[in-house]
């Protein structure tokens, strides 16, 4: 029988042809392979969120195989001796089982929780980057809205997630959540009893939160993240101004191989950091909290950090209740304002911001170039104000821990928060605004007068002056173009091409550029030294 010769080397080509015959992937694939991405470290922050989300999905699947989302009462009989014989719910017992009786269960649980904290932290950091550089402006307002929604959906994911084990700490948080729902006027008691299936805690809330946490919320997250990334792909990423960059192009490197490898490597780094934290730093030790019992609470009870700002606003709110004396009398409890109205305002403000700012600055053009924070002092100062507001509230959420650790009166901490929340944000606004203006001024000063060389020269009449290296070759005025103005001599290449390394400067031969976007520096044929004889 004649053996068919198989040419191994032709197999990839044949396979590719087969695929292309059926799906016509060649052109789209080429477009994907060639797509140009700009390169800046701050553009990678959103990917921390993306990669932590993938880790959440992977570890989460593991956990769903062992967790029992039921409030049925059981008696614990596992490895953790201090809880043996205790009555608890199946949800709590299964969490203990994952932690102590499943090989490697504890590290999966911890990685899952650290990844959740990192997910939210990186969303906040990424959002701040987008805000302070103006990347949310037209045409990217919708992406900003999707991103803001991602924060709140992530918030929901985290809240339902850490409430699943039904431990003392998260159960208390759930109690507070039911009180928050209760405080809504007119419909509050109906909302609470509908969600809990009766009076708190009911029998069904863990099962409902489980479905929300593993199906509904992740589904929504995947949809939103896909839309978010899809928009970035379609609209192309923004870029910093600089040499060769305009509003109509993207300067960077093509996707394959370098950029894709960087993405893959970064994914591994994020995963590695989560693994290290998950193994080396204990998080959410539910066995110490005990099962949730409505009469038990621990000092220093806080929610996870991304919810802590609401805890803070609740602690600061004065006891102002509104009584409506109609009929039997109706009341709006003080809990309503800091936990329902305030988040509502924050969500509304953040979603509407791109349009609010466009209206205010009357700027309706499309922007693909970023702005340095100092160039938009109002926006930067507003952002600093928002961050300060958030920080005061978050720190207040932990004010009993701070009071105990640093021996400060608890009552004084509350008052400090009440006063701080009113005084600190405007102060931050003012300071940031002035700093931005100062930085802008310095940029223009250097453009006009040149870089300080540090060389002092004495004039014949006895005056001392510093020699400045002008930045323009002619006598014309240099215009500020929205990018970094070099302020040190080594940035100009005057002292030899000191290409900045990471921790210490690395001198390299003159031909090679440091990174895409930085034009290569050519050595001038005659290098005149700057000395005290020269002007």
């Amino acid at each position, binding site marked *: 029988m004649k053996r068919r010769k198989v040419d191994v080397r032709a197999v990839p080509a044949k396979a590719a042809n087969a695929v292309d015959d059926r799906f016509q992937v060649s052109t789209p694939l080429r477009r994907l392979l060639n797509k140009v991405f700009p390169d800046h470290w701050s553009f990678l922050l959103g990917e921390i969120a993306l990669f932590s989300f993938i880790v959440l999905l992977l570890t989460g699947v593991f956990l769903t195989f062992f967790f029992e989302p039921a409030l049925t009462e059981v008696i614990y009989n596992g490895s953790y001796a201090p809880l043996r014989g205790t009555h608890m719910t199946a949800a709590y017992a299964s969490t203990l089982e994952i932690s102590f009786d499943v090989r490697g269960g504890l590290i999966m649980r911890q990685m899952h929780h650290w990844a959740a904290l990192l997910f939210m932290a990186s969303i906040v950091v990424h959002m701040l980057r987008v805000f302070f550089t103006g990347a949310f402006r037209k045409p990217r307002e919708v992406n900003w809205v999707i991103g803001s929604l991602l924060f709140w959906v992530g918030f929901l994911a985290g809240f339902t997630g850490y409430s699943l084990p039904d431990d003392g700490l998260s159960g208390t948080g759930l109690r507070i959540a039911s009180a928050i729902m209760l405080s809504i*006027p*007119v419909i509050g008691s*109906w909302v609470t009893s509908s969600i809990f299936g009766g009076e708190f805690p009911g029998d069904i809330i863990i099962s409902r939160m489980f479905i929300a946490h593993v199906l509904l919320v992740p589904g929504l997250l995947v949809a939103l993240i896909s839309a978010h990334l899809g928009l970035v792909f379609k609209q192309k990423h923004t870029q910093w101004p600089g040499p060769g960059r305009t509003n109509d192009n993207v300067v960077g490197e093509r996707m394959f191989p370098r950029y894709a490898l960087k993405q893959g*490597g970064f994914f591994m780094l994020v995963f*590695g950091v989560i693994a290290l934290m998950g193994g080396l730093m204990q998080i959410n030790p539910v066995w110490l909290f005990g099962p949730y019992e409505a009469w038990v609470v621990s000092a220093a009870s806080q929610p996870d950090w991304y919810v802590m700002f609401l805890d803070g606003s609740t602690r600061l709110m004065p006891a102002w209740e509104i009584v409506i004396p109609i009929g039997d*009398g109706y009341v709006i409890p*003080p*809990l309503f304002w800091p936990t329902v109205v305030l988040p509502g305002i924050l969500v509304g403000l953040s979603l509407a911001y791109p349009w609010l700012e466009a209206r205010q600055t009357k700027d309706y053009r499309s922007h693909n170039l970023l702005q340095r924070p100092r160039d938009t002092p109002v926006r930067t100062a507003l952002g600093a104000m928002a961050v300060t507001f958030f920080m005061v509230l978050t720190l207040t959420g932990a004010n009993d821990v701070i009071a105990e650790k640093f021996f400060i009166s608890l009552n004084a901490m509350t008052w400090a928060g009440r006063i701080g929340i009113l005084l600190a944000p405007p102060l931050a606004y003012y300071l940031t605004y002035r700093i931005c203006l100062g930085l802008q001024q310095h940029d223009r000063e250097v453009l006009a007068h040149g870089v300080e060389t540090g060389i002092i020269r004495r004039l014949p009449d006895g005056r001392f002056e510093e020699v400045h290296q002008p930045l323009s070759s002619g006598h014309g005025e240099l215009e500020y173009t929205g990018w970094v103005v070099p302020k040190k001599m080594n940035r100009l290449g005057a002292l030899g091409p000191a290409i900045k390394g990471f921790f210490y400067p690395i001198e390299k031969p003159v031909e090679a*550029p440091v990174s895409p976007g930085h034009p290569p520096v050519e050595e001038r044929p005659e290098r005149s030294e700057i000395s005290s004889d020269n002007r």
Partner: protein
Amino acid sequence: MSTHADTPADKAGGSPIDLDDPSLTRFDIVREGARLDDIEIVHYEPQFPVAGTKAERRVTRFVSFLFLLTGAAATAFLAIYIWWPWEYKLAAGPDKLYTPLLGLTLGVALLGIGFGILTWAKKLLPKEISIQARHDTSTPESRKIVGNTMLYMADELGVKRRPLLGASVLAGLLPVGAVAAAPLVGGLINNPHKNNQMMTTGFQPVDGKPVRLVREDGTPVRPDDISTGGQITVFPGIPHGVSNKHADSPTLLIHLRESDAEKARANNERNEHNRGYMWGNYIAYSKICTHAGCPASLYEQQTNLLLCPCHQSQFLITDNAKPVFGPASRRLPQLPIELDAEGFFVAKSDYTEAVGPDFWERP
């Protein structure tokens, strides 16, 4: 913009090249493809054009080392995972290191791959600068075409011509939308006031008999079980009284000092709700904070303040547990107590105010 490329650059959008030309290098074909995507590769430069230099070998060795480190760490992970003693024991022991070691090895393995790939990309791959045009505006023609197409489609539907159609569609579909939502909403809706549950707790007398106050283990409480200046958490002495099924019932029973008890009693008299609710020097308040429902349980026996740890509301026990600091605006409900024939504490009646966090229709 520099033109420091190794080969002469074709401007993007320039004339296409002949792909069958045998003198073309592979890079020329790549560049042609980029041109088709409006990309101009303006700078492309291998980091190690001369093969085999010492620098290149050093970087390659470093990357290989990182990958091998990954393999070693991954193997260590597997070994620890399988053979390290992991079963939890209360005392200190090697099992406490199981999770940290797993985390360490897994972390090193992942960081190894990460750094390896990144070093490869940063140090071994050619550096390039490419510029892609954005083309992110639609032409007016395409907008006109699509706009007109949609308007024509609307005309074809003929809703304008036949207004009855449009009106009936709306009128008919609206209820259908509600039908889709009805089972979910209807199924979830739960009347909060059935059995008057928001105004009753487990202390409601059963068949006219007052309910005993019991400890967490179910045993009833006598007055001399609590020392002066002491406090105990009590529950209704009914089936499942000590469980989350009666999460609104936990009560704090406090034995006040004589002078404090007199003050408390006098203030009780002044309040139309709490007259006569104390028994001797014993006073009982709901443990469920009226702010957000946490157990308000930090009793300071000298100041007679009850602090809730969640949001730091403070209630003055000697004055009807009214809030004196913090966000709570409603005093804690007081439980009327007395002794039964056998000398155990019972609740004379249920709480006469709603227990727990405030709500809109609270009378």
